């Protein structure tokens, strides 16, 4: 049989998953909807106090239950970044943007999000960025309620 006779067809795997989130993630998402960013108090392997943002239900390293939730800053430091010149389907922005790990003021860990910086040249590790929120009416309790981060100087 010639290769051309082998049958091929498109196949779609699609489902509208709806997930229950439990108390910790639920509180974080509720906070986002209300315009606040929450972290979870925890302790690292050496017993030093930490704040996990976004809050996982269990400490990322020690696996202990996390403690109380606390509000952290809406600005922070980029710990590392990458520049996406061609955004892909369903990604947070539809123009070139930076993926970042951003450590918010008051947090110990960094969260994955994006920075709308205009150009690669505007990005550097250690730069300060601040959250740009979607309008309150559009926020539903998901990470994209923060539309993106922007360089702090550009949004004082």
């Amino acid at each position: 049989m010639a290769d051309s006779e082998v049958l091929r067809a498109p196949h779609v795997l699609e489902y509208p998953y709806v997930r229950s989130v439990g108390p910790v993630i639920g509180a974080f998402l509720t906070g986002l909807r209300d315009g606040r960013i929450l972290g979870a108090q925890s302790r690292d392997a050496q017993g030093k106090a930490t704040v996990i943002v976004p809050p996982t239900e269990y400490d990322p390293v020690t696996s202990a239950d996390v403690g109380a939730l606390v509000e952290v800053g809406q600005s922070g430091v980029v710990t590392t970044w990458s520049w996406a010149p061609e955004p892909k389907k369903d990604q947070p922005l539809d123009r070139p943007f930076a993926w970042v790990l951003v450590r918010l003021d008051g947090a110990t860990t960094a969260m994955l999000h994006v920075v709308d910086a205009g150009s690669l040249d505007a990005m550097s590790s250690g730069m300060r960025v601040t959250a740009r929120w979607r309008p309150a009416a559009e926020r539903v309790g998901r990470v994209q309620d923060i539309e993106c981060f922007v360089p702090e100087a550009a949004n004082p």
Partner: protein
Amino acid sequence: MSDPGTITDSGSSGEAPVTMLATPIRLDYQYTAGLSQSRFLQGIAQGKFIGQRCPACHKVYVPPRGSCPTDGVATTDPVELSNSGTVTTYCVVNVPFQGQSIEIPYICAQILLDGANIAFMGLIQELPATDVRMGMRVEAVWLPKDQWGLTMASVKYFRPNGEPDADYETFKEYL
């Protein structure tokens, strides 16, 4: 920025706390049927059931899936099978489910085509659901020729072919 502090109220806006998250997922694939399935469906498009014989155990598989599942070798030798076969076992479907296109109740049967060594699932029509029997002889009813295509849907269903029932001993090893 407000002062960091312990959060005690989970829904300060007065709205209910968020408990669910919608994350729709869509993935697109380009599916390849592979050689054996393609050959089988090309036979269907010509109104024929074409199985494949294992060169090691000589069993005939239909629809063929590329390998003999017991010997792990390619089944390459094509075998044209009869349009008739025997109902080895069956169930009566009486439940609606997603993707179903037939009015319930109806009969789903394992059909062993004459010349094949494995049964496959087929729809039985043209008789009341209560009248189906193990051993019943059936034949394939095809769509009009101009509607044959590269799909098992070219076969509308199976129906009794009027022959006397097969003896249980002749098909019991296929249960």
